[in-house]
């Protein structure tokens, strides 16, 4: 049941964002409750007076999880590349969750700049996790420049709308049978995450649905269970849907049954 990303094996198929929690303590407890192996982080301007980043960095080190830095907020390939370089030095990892945002309203990836940045970062030795759309041609381009993982959106970041186009995601799964696929963004409920896993996705990355819920610690556990359930379902070869009812209890021997004249 393990997940392999860029040659490293993980037990959990939940990748957890670290933003928007009510407190650092609840963030830590949520990470523990989810049993996730990978957390996402970012980089932001550091005030030499408050040094907020230094406190967060100590907290991160205590979690003993694998860190996946992002390039959130970048709008050009150049910004994303420079941010990735800074993240690599800060976090001592060549992993980067590559986001190049193309639209402020739906935070849709700019797939042209995404491919450009991915190509350059891979040339520089990065292991790129691209936040992309469910477009298979874009996926092909990303794999072509050296990405080994694809992370299509389920719906816009933070919207909680779940999988807006399951058919496209299903197509993506069929088209890239051997590539790790992670639904990233738009998940609102554990059932959304389970649905993604039932489609055969390898993992789910989410943040807001847990952090902004009324009980992030319990919700992180709920998501972990849903993701495990969805994965087990996918591996168990679910039945096909039918248009008509089919009795589950044997018909033969039904008492009081009489052949209709």
């Amino acid at each position, binding site marked *: 049941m393990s997940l392999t990303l860029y040659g490293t094996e993980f037990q959990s198929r939940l990748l957890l964002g670290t933003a928007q929690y009510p407190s650092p303590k609840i963030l830590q407890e949520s990470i523990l409750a989810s049993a996730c192996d990978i957390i996402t982080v*970012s980089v932001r301007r*550091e005030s030499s007076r408050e040094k907020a*980043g*230094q406190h967060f960095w100590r907290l991160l080190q205590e979690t003993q999880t694998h860190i996946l830095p992002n390039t959130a907020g970048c709008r050009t390939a150049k910004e994303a590349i*420079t941010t990735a370089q*800074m993240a690599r030095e*800060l976090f001592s990892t060549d992993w980067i969750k590559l986001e190049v945002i193309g639209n402020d309203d739906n935070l849709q990836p700019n797939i042209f700049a995404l491919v450009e940045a991915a190509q350059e970062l891979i040339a520089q030795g990065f292991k790129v996790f691209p936040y992309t759309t469910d477009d298979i041609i874009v996926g092909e381009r990303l794999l072509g420049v050296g990405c080994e993982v694809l992370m299509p959106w389920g719906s816009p970041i933070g919207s909680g709308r779940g999988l807006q186009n399951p058919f496209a995601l299903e197509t993506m799964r069929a088209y890239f049978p051997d590539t790790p696929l992670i639904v990233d963004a738009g998940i609102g409920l554990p059932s959304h995450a389970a649905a993604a896993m039932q489609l055969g996705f390898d993992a789910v990355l989410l943040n807001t649905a847990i952090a902004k819920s009324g009980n992030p610690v319990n919700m992180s556990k709920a998501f972990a269970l849903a993701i495990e359930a969805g994965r087990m379902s996918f591996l168990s070869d679910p039945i096909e849907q039918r248009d008509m009812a089919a009795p589950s209890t044997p018909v033969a021997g039904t008492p009081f049954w009489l052949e209709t004249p």
Partner: protein
Amino acid sequence: MQIILNGETISTEETTLEALLAEQGYSNCSVATAVNEAFIAKKEYANTRLHPECVVEVVAPMQGG
């Protein structure tokens, strides 16, 4: 001279990135930097000369999704 540090214009007499970071209180902090939108690795701090109107970014770990 005046430079722009994390989006704010400041005055400094320091001429290297290393000296500027010390002056501004970033010594012993886990930070990464860019000057004029180009990443500057730690080992290059002492050799990176600052010029008037330089745009310096100093970043640290932050929560993210």
